[in-house]
């Protein structure tokens, strides 16, 4: 059996190979003002929010759930942070920025808790429970921004999404930290095992004495937090909050990243590293499409097509059918041979 990262890595490598052949400058990285610049760095930087959201989504999906509200949470937290900062006298004050970040993250936790409560407490199917916040969340975000795009001028806040540390975009370090925390929490404590057990066999898990309710609430809480951090990065990157468009369709890209990364929508085993690679594949794909000059009208179609192929390659049964077809195609010829012999 191949390692679970084999196919995601192969796809990523193929995408990069395509770019190498198409335009070698894709790989050029320059140093300017002590910062690294280049397409690859951009992919990491712009892909950071998606990676974060997808990491949270992975755990939710592992419990056989789904969280459609992450895009709205992204918009709400961005709006909350920008609103708080825009009200300040000195928008660059450290205390103000910290307050804004703290408030937004607390809000994202509350929203995650709401989702978890609806799913585990009330017992609503996850897709419906989170659909509520997906729809209502856009409204909340616009309420916060009063329907306007709030622009802020705060270097400190901008640092989160556009700053650099050790020549690399700061957002990459945030992703690394969240990824490390999630991996440690799930692999070094028992939570990971509980998540997999609850997602794989809820009844058996209950009989084994697992408190599945708290496990489920915890994953939605974490997913909300991840979306909240992503919201901060996104809004800080452009120094503004757009309740309408920030984080639009993020839930779909995140679900896609999780699936490409090898975690099944049926719950159970999950692969955080696979998810991160899945998110990178999506981001690389998006960048590649823009760079190869595909007409904007059909970018989404091209993207959808590539995603379809990636998902099919991931599927073991599809690969089997393919190889089987290929093998059986030779049978008539073989029969022919034996008859002559």
């Amino acid at each position, binding site marked *: 059996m191949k390692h679970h990262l084999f196919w995601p890595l192969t796809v990523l490598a193929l995408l990069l190979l395509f770019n190498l052949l198409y335009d070698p400058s894709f790989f050029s990285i320059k140093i300017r003002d002590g910062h690294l610049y280049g397409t690859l760095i951009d992919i990491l930087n712009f892909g950071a929010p998606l990676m974060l959201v997808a990491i949270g989504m992975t755990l939710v999906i592992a419990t056989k759930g789904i969280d459609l509200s992450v895009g709205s949470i992204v918009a709400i937290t961005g709006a909350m942070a920008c609103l708080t900062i825009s009200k300040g006298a000195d928008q660059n004050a450290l205390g103000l920025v910290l307050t804004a970040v703290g408030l937004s993250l607390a809000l994202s936790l509350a929203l995650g808790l709401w989702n978890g409560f609806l799913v585990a407490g009330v017992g609503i199917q996850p897709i419906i429970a989170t659909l509520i916040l997906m729809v209502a969340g856009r409204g909340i975000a616009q309420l916060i921004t009063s329907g306007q795009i709030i622009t802020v001028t705060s270097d400190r806040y901008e640092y989160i999404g556009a700053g650099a540390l050790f020549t690399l975009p700061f957002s990459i370090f945030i992703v690394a930290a969240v990824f490390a925390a999630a991996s440690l929490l799930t692999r070094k*404590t*028992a*939570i990971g095992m509980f998540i997999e*057990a609850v997602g*794989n066999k809820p*009844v058996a898990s209950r009989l084994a*004495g*697992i*408190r599945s309710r708290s496990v489920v609430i915890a994953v939605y809480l974490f997913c909300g937090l991840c979306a909240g951090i992503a919201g901060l990065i996104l809004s800080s990157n452009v120094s503004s909050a757009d309740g309408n468009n920030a984080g639009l369709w993020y839930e779909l890209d995140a679900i896609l990243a999780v699936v490409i990364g090898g975690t099944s929508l049926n719950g159970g085993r999950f692969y955080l590293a696979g998810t991160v690679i899945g998110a990178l594949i999506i981001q690389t794909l998006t960048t590649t499409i823009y760079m190869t000059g595909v007409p904007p009208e059909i970018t989404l179609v091209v993207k959808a097509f590539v995603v379809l192929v990636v998902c099919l390659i991931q599927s073991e049964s599809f690969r089997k059918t393919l190889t089987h077809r290929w093998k059986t195609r030779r049978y008539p010829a073989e029969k022919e041979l034996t008859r002559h012999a």
Partner: protein
Amino acid sequence: MEERLPILQMKDIYKQFPGVKALSGVQFRLFPGEVHALMGENGAGKSTLIKVLTGVYAIDRGYVELEQKRIQIQSPQDAQAAGISTVYQEVNLCPNLSVAENIFIGREPRRLGRILWKELNRAAAKLLEERMNLSIDVSQPLHSYPIAIQQLVAIARALNISAKVLILDEPTSSLDRGEVRQLFDVMNKLKREGLAILFVTHFLDQVYEISDRITILRGGEFVGEYAASALPRIELVSKMIGKELELLEELPKLQAEAGDEGGEIVLEARSLGRKGAVEPFDLSIRKGEIVGLAGLLGSGRTETARLLFGADRADQGTLRIGDTGSVHTPRQAIDQGIAFCSEDRKGEGIIDDLTIRENIVLALQASQGWFRTISKKRQSEIAEQFIEALNINPPNPDQLIKNLSGGNQQKVLLARWLLTDPKLLILDEPTRGIDIGAKAEIQKLVMSLSEKGMSVLFISSELEEVLRVSDRIAVLRDRRKVKEMSGDEMSEQLVLKAIAGGGEG
């Protein structure tokens, strides 16, 4: 009665699945105007026979005659067209459609493609009234009625489609007494109208109440066909289980002595019961005692176990464990030192995606919580210990459990619970579907555990096994605890008698 010709005849039916002879040489006849009970334990071939008759499976050998004409049933549609209708245990109608729609779905009265709703409702009401003695509002959704009514609606639908032979597969298993009465009234009425009914149930009382004739299967083979009035209960049971009473011999008992009477009481249930699952019963289990639960399939054994473990909530009575209070959830039961190995190993036991190691530590880790983590190293040590002690194959802690054989999965589940060091271990069919070697190992293990002071509630369909390991046996029949015996009273014959009940044969 014998002069009449059977409406349905199945002759020398053979059906083989990979590795299993599901049916070999089975005969079955059904006369018009009779209720014919098909009896047999798990794996006897009842469901296979019904599936053959309804076209779900094709037969390997043998033939089926309907009204003296050979018929080929290749699909459920064929069966229906031939006049054979089935109503399954789980009502498989559409609960969110109305009663009338359910009855006529696919055959609605129409004009110019438009459904005539008034006509539909009128016809449905008339059908229920005339054939089922049931007058209900047929425009209401099906799910607004109790299961018993849904059952009758399902029968009405089956009769309306085609009505020579009606198969009722465990229709009474989720009905209460009054509802069973109602169903039987309908069955008697249909019987008088000349319908042939094939009836499958696990309730002996019901078999004798309603059936005219009984066919018994065992291990895929035909045991015999009897007139219900000429077959004493005890004989029925021994034929189903496969023990001729005359040939019974006392089995050598492996344990030295019966459980000591003075041991402290680990668990005590007083008039504990749950409507529709098991009627109120008393049961107490002492320290180090093995209590066997005997009874036929569906007699309430599993339901009893689930109540004691808190997997289902009791709606009456009290349950005391040790000195402390009651149990409402599995979590609480585990905290009180109870462990429960479900009979449904695949659905309620193993976690497919996890490894042997993770499956073993799961329950212990669950009771320790999220952060008092058992280190991976310690987990592997534990797993290796149990792999060696229970002889689990393959001996690799990191193998996924779904790749193991049934017997080895069972051992892993046993290990899961032994690791929690329970005061009381509830084993529901721990040896079902596993090979003889593993079976003996598990029995031996159970007895050595009790010697070390663990109490065990042992549930099994295999009487010999229950007799061999138990210090005391409680017998269940038709969801009621009917007898408790210990020491010298425990003989196969007495247990069989208690299982059969009624006229005492």
